[in-house]
C-alpha cells in the first residue's frame, strides 16, 4: 500500500460521511470514462443518467468534440435514442456506441456527452486512447531443424507451436517446400492430419511435420519453411532436409517385355535392359542368369563398370535352350549384381518346336504321295 491509495481511501470515507451536502441536478455517469482501444473496433460506454431531486423531465443527449469521421449512437431499450426520461431520484441506463474507422490517427481523443434537461445540464468528459492492436504472438520452435535421409524415406520434424497472446487463436499451418514434395501436419499423438490448430492463450502444441520428397530427388539440401499463421500473428520455422542419393537397379526386357520365344537347341538373342532408376550411380554391375540345366545364357557385355542415375543400358542376352527342352514356357531369372545393390527379374521363355521336323514330315507325306503317283503311273492305264 502506498501513500496514494491511502489518500483515495480517505477521500472515499469523506464522501460517504457527507450526506449533508445534498446534490441537486443531473448526472451522467459511466464506470470507465477513459478507454484504450485498437483500430477497427467499437467502443461501448455504459451510461447512467440520474436525476437528483429534480422534477421528472426529459433529458436530451448529445456528444460534442468527437473527431471527424467517428460515428456514435445512443442505444437504449433495443433501439437508437436521442433522449432519456428520468424520474426524480432514479436513473436510466443508456449506451453510447462509438465506432471509428481506419483513418483515425492514434493517440488520445477527448469528447464529451452532453445531457440537457429543463434548466439543468451535465457534461461527461470521455477520453479514448487509440493505439495499435495489442500484439498477438505465436512461436514455432523446431526440435531438430535438420534431418538427413534418402528420397524414399519420410522426413519427420517435430515442431512446438506456442500461443503467446492474451486470447485464444486459430492457427493455420502451411509450408513451403520444393515442388513435388508433399508436406503433412499431424498431431504428435494420434496422428490426425491437421491444417488448423486452435490454441488457448499461452498453450502449446507439438506438431509433427512429415515431408515426403520426390523419389527421384537428386542429392542435396532442401529447405522447407513451415508457417503458422493466426489472425494477427505468424511464426516461421525453417527446416532443412538433406537428401542423400540412392542407387536403384532394375532389370527388364526391352520395352518392359518379360518374355521371349526360342527354339530348342537354337540360340536366340533377347535384349535385356539394365537401368538405374535411383539417384546415385551404380558401379561394378555383373550379370548372371539362373537357368534350367542344359541351357546357355550369355550376356554381352556381362559387366558394366558404371551406370549413372537415370540411365539405361541395353544388354544382349544370347539364350540357347537345351536341345531337349520341351515345347512351352520356361522361366529363367536374370540377375544384376552391383556393389551397392542388386536386382533380378524372371523372364518367361517360350520354347517353340522347330518347324524343321514339320518340313521333314511333309517330305515323308510327299514321298508317300510319290509312291502313289508311281503306282498310278505303272498300273493306272487300265
Amino acid at each position, binding site marked *: 500500500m502506498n501513500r496514494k491509495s491511502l489518500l483515495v481511501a480517505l477521500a472515499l470515507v469523506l464522501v460517504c460521511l457527507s450526506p449533508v451536502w445534498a446534490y441537486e441536478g443531473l448526472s451522467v455517469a459511466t464506470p470507465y470514462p477513459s478507454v484504450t482501444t485498437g483500430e477497427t473496433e467499437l467502443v461501448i460506454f455504459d451510461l447512467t443518467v440520474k436525476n437528483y431531486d429534480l422534477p421528472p423531465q426529459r433529458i436530451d443527449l448529445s456528444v460534442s468534440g468527437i473527431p471527424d469521421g467517428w460515428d456514435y449512437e445512443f442505444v437504449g431499450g433495443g433501439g437508437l435514442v436521442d433522449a432519456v426520461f428520468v424520474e426524480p431520484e432514479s436513473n436510466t441506463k443508456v449506451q453510447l456506441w462509438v465506432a471509428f474507422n481506419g483513418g483515425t490517427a492514434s493517440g488520445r481523443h477527448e469528447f464529451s456527452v452532453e445531457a440537457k434537461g429543463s434548466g439543468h445540464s451535465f457534461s461527461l468528459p470521455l477520453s479514448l486512447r487509440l493505439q495499435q492492436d495489442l500484439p498477438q504472438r505465436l512461436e514455432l520452435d523446431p526440435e531438430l531443424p535438420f534431418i538427413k535421409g534418402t528420397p524414399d524415406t519420410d522426413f519427420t520434424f517435430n515442431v512446438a507451436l506456442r500461443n503467446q497472446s492474451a486470447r485464444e487463436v486459430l492457427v493455420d499451418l502451411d509450408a513451403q517446400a520444393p515442388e513435388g514434395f508433399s508436406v503433412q501436419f499431424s498431431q504428435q499423438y494420434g496422428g490426425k492430419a491437421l491444417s488448423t490448430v486452435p490454441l488457448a492463450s499461452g498453450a502449446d502444441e507439438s506438431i509433427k511435420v512429415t515431408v515426403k520428397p520426390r523419389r527421384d530427388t537428386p542429392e542435396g539440401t532442401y529447405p522447407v519453411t513451415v508457417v503458422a499463421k493466426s489472425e494477427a500473428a505468424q511464426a516461421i520455422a525453417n527446416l532443412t532436409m538433406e537428401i542423400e542419393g540412392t542407387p536403384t537397379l532394375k532389370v527388364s526386357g526391352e520395352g518392359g517385355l518379360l518374355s521371349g520365344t526360342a527354339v530348342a537347341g537354337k540360340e536366340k538373342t533377347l535384349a535385356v535392359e539394365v537401368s538405374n532408376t535411383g539417384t546415385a550411380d551404380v558401379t561394378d554391375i555383373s550379370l548372371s542368369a539362373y537357368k534350367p540345366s542344359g541351357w546357355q545364357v550369355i550376356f554381352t557385355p556381362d559387366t558394366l563398370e558404371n551406370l549413372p542415375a537415370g540411365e539405361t543400358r541395353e544388354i544382349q542376352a544370347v539364350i540357347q535352350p537345351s536341345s531337349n527342352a*520341351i515345347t512351352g514356357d520356361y522361366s529363367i531369372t536374370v540377375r544384376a549384381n552391383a556393389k551397392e545393390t542388386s536386382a533380378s527379374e524372371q523372364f518367361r521363355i517360350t520354347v517353340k*518346336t522347330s518347324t524343321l521336323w514339320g518340313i521333314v514330315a511333309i517330305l515323308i507325306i510327299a514321298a*508317300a504321295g510319290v509312291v502313289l503317283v508311281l*503306282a498310278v503311273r505303272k498300273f493306272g492305264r487300265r
Partner: protein
Amino acid sequence: MRRNDFALRGLRVVTVKELQDFTGSARMVILTALILITAASSLYTATNTMKTVVSEDEFLLLSLFTLSRNPVPSLLSFLSFLVPLTGIAMGFDVVNSEFQNRTLKRVLSQPIHRDVLLFGKAVGALGAMTVVLLALWMLVIGSAMLVLGLPPSTEQVARALAFYGVTLAFGMFWFLVAMFFSVVFRQQATSALVSLGLWLLLTVFWSMIAQVVATAVGGVGSFQAARLEVLLSRISPNTLFAESALALLSPSTRTLGVVMFTQLEGALMGSPLPFGQSLLLIWPQLSALVALLVLLFTASYVVFQRQEL
C-alpha cells in the same frame, strides 16, 4: 472327234453311288446311331459334371471330349473305339463284294479306268465318314454352347476342328486297312476277320507287346526301355490318334512320350500351348498317319490293279 479322255473319268459317278451306299446301308445307319447315342450320353454326363464342378475352365469345349464320370467313358474313349469299327464296317467288303456280286466286269467294261472305282470308293467313304463325324462334331459344339451360353473361342474351335480332322484320318486309316484286306481276300468273312484281328492286336495287345519287348531289350525300368516302349507303341495308329487327341484336347500338354527330369527344370507347368505349337507337337504323328493313309491306299491300289477280274 471325241474329247481327250480324262484319267479320272467317271469318278464322280462312282463316288456318288458309293456315298449313297455307305450312308444308306443298314450297317452305317446302325453304327452312326450307335456313335451318336454314345456321344450324347457321354456329353450329357460331361456337361453335368461340368455344371457341378464350378471352375473357370478356359477350354470348356475341349473338356467335353475328355470328361468322363463312372460308368460312362469320355467321348474320346468312345470315339477311339467306335471310329475304327466304323471304318472297318465300311471297308471290309468294299471291293470283294463287287467280285462276289460279279458286278466288276460289267462296270469296268464301261468307259472308265479301273482305278477310278477304287478312288471313288475311297472318296465316297471319306465323304460318308466326314458327314457322320461332322454330325458328331456339331453335337459337341452345340452342347458346349448350351453349357456355356456363348460360342466357344476360336482357339477351341480350331482345336476341335483339328481333332475332327485327326479323327477322320484315324477312321480312314481303318477303312483303308479293311479295304486293303477286301482287295486281297475274295471272301468278305476273311477280310472282316483279318481287319478285326489287326484292330484287336493294335488296340488291345500292342501296348502289352511293346512293353514286353521294351523291357526284354532295355531292362526293367530303364530309360531306354521306356523310350523303346513309346517308340514301339507308336507303330500302332491308335497311339498316334491318342497322342494327337491328347495334345489337341489338353492344351497344356507340352510333350508326348518320355520326359527327363532335366527337361522339366524351370518349366512353367500348366500354361497352355498355343494351337500352332500343339499342332507342331503332334506333327510327326499327323504326318505319319497321313503317310500311312497314302501308303495303305497305294498298297490296295497296286494289288487291285494287278488283279485278274
